[in-house]
């Protein structure tokens, strides 16, 4: 009888190990993936130490901070206007990107800094209880817009490319907010077709 119980226990442990192993991601970047909170446009998303709300998404064929200096994108400028605040301590939304349906990532570039009239929102210190408003500016090929998701986090931006076959470092289990832009193929075409020739982008402010 005791042998039967031992055999059954061993079998149960084997099955449990097999179950756990089957549900544990093998690769590093999946196992330690950011802790993403998904939201939608217009609704506040609480992620880790910050709250962000995507107010609207527009596009432009060029942008200017002051009417004189004009910045032109490779593709089209996608301007994600957000309101954000921290939940506990001062922080910066230092990482922002657009993730396309097929896995491409478009980070905000130096054109984001130039295009903003004032500090872009990732340079603004967020504090609790006070909404800071501003825009992230991405340059994206129009064909990649459909199904894209806006991703924002207070983790440090990766300044350097990671070594070959090695995931970007510094992302492990960090909080991020993922907000799908809700663009279908037709919606993306409409957004680009209606994009104004020039947009004036205000810097971050409260």
């Amino acid at each position, binding site marked *: 009888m005791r042998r039967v119980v031992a055999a059954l226990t061993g079998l149960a442990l084997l099955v449990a190990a097999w179950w756990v192993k089957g549900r544990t991601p093998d690769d590093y970047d999946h196992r330690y993936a950011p802790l993403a909170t998904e939201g939608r446009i217009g609704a506040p998303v609480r992620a880790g130490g910050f709250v962000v709300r995507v107010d609207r998404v527009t596009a432009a064929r060029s942008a200017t901070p002051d009417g004189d200096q004009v910045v032109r994108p490779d593709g089209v400028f996608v301007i994600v206007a957000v309101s954000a605040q921290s*939940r506990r*301590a001062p922080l910066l939304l230092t990482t922002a990107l657009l993730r396309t349906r097929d896995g491409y990532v478009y980070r905000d570039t130096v054109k984001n800094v130039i295009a903003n009239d004032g500090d872009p929102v990732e340079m603004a210190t967020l504090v609790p209880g*006070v909404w800071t408003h501003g825009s992230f500016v991405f340059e994206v090929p129009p064909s990649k817009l459909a199904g894209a998701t806006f991703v924002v986090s207070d983790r440090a931006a990766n300044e350097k490319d990671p070594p070959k076959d090695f995931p970007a470092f510094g992302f492990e289990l960090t909080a991020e907010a993922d907000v799908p832009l809700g663009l279908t193929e037709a919606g993306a075409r409409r957004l680009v077709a209606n994009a104004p020739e020039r947009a004036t982008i205000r810097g971050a402010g409260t």
Partner: protein
Amino acid sequence: MSAEPSEAPEVGRPSAEPSEEPGAGRPSPEEPEAGRPGGGRRNAWTAAALAVVLPVAVGLPLWQQLRYYDRHRYHEAVTTVPAGGGAVLNHASWRLLDLRRTSTGVRMRFRMTPLDKDGTSTLEDLFEVRDERGRRWQFDRDPLLDMVEVGRPVTVSVGGPVPADVADRVFPVVRYAPLKQAPGPVPVLRFRR
């Protein structure tokens, strides 16, 4: 070489015949372990050894990791300063003069007196207000207030935006925040209003 088995019994090979001597034979493999003479005692010793070894083997590395985490995590050594009182932080004496509301937040003034040469700069001091929920608002200090004289009191005025609904309930904090922080608690002064 002959393949015939030898008739002489081999040394060390157990005899196929059961022994006549009581207790001299090996127990049958079917016989339960605890049923052997002395088996129960052996199990007890094994259990006792496991009870000692397992907690040490599992607990010691965990304890070491927790100790490492505790040494390196951010934690504060808070000194609560009574209203009107003073306290020492980063080689300087600090006293809260006042805290008042502004149109967008609060502004507070401190009286700082450097006690020695290391206390003549506020570069490594951070000024905050906090509420009872632990939320923090950090303010920039006056950049001109560097390298004051030892023993000579100066007024430090800092302020910034705070939500209107908490402006009357926040309390001022001065925090020592050097560029290179040694492991251990961070000294913090928390002023009562």
